[in-house]
């Protein structure tokens, strides 16, 4: 599975949010999909909201806080390229930044 590609410690690893557009309830904001950031901290495992939303048994999945540079999210339109944005993203949405 994809998450085995993340390194052991996760911390500060450069990752990309998978560019997926699945139907249904997901918590990964669309504006961050396909964007590159670093794992700021790992938060432990939390029940997957993609299952919880439908009342099915939810597996606890690793959740990370990912930090993005505004320039990496908004490109040349960034208000200030070095400001940052942190969001909580479940590990199954992350891949190493160099994954093809």
């Amino acid at each position, binding site marked *: 599975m994809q998450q085995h590609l993340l390194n052991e410690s996760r911390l500060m690893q450069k990752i990309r949010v998978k560019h997926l557009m699945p139907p249904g309830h997901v918590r990964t904001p669309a504006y961050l999909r396909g964007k590159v950031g670093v794992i700021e901290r790992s938060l432990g495992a939390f029940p997957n*909201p993609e299952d919880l939303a439908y009342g099915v048994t939810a597996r606890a999945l690793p959740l990370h806080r990912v930090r993005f540079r505004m320039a990496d999210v*908004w490109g040349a339109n960034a208000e200030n390229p070095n*400001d*940052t*944005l942190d*969001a*909580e993203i479940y590990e199954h949405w992350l891949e190493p930044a160099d994954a093809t």
Partner: protein
Amino acid sequence: MPHDHHDHDTLNPPGHPYRADDDAPLSYWQVMEIAVRELLVEKGITTASEIAAQIDTMDARTPSNGAQVVARAWCDPEFHAALMDDASEATHAMGFDIGALKLIAVENTDEVHNMIVCTLCSCYPRNLLGLPPDWYKSRAYRSRTVREPRSVLAEFGVILPDTTKIRVHDSTADMRYIVIPNRPEGTENMSQNDLSGLVTRDSMIGTGLAIPSLSLDA
């Protein structure tokens, strides 16, 4: 004519806006809520007074809870360290329970200014700040804060130099955030209790700063 105001349809005589009577039929979800609530009461799982008490509890929470946390963090280095390490645990010990969620405290410095938003809905540390203000739930605040935080801050009267990095936190999952604003200058001799009076709701969302101590003398 002085009494012939144009908005006379929307204002009652003392000038307060009327709230239109909600004579429309109940929506699907309103019917669902009533049905589920009545079933829970009928089956003895909860009672009407328990529900009313819970609403009362929720309405009673105010930003003064969060202000106590911030003022203590300013005054008590040990608590400050515990708060930054595990804010859920540190605030729980003060009697503020965030339940199944987790709290993260993010601290402003001269180099970094933090700002909280929930682009997906309206996640907010209600146990510390009470109910979120309407603007926090608006599409404008939610969509603009992640894209142009400095412009949003300017509209709140907060202008930061380019050398201060802005760190926006989008509450997308199980974390809730509280900003620990910078302690205003010249407050070294103030008591923890007085300091909590400087900590506004907006300063804990990151759309404002703590009140400078001088303005209290005025």
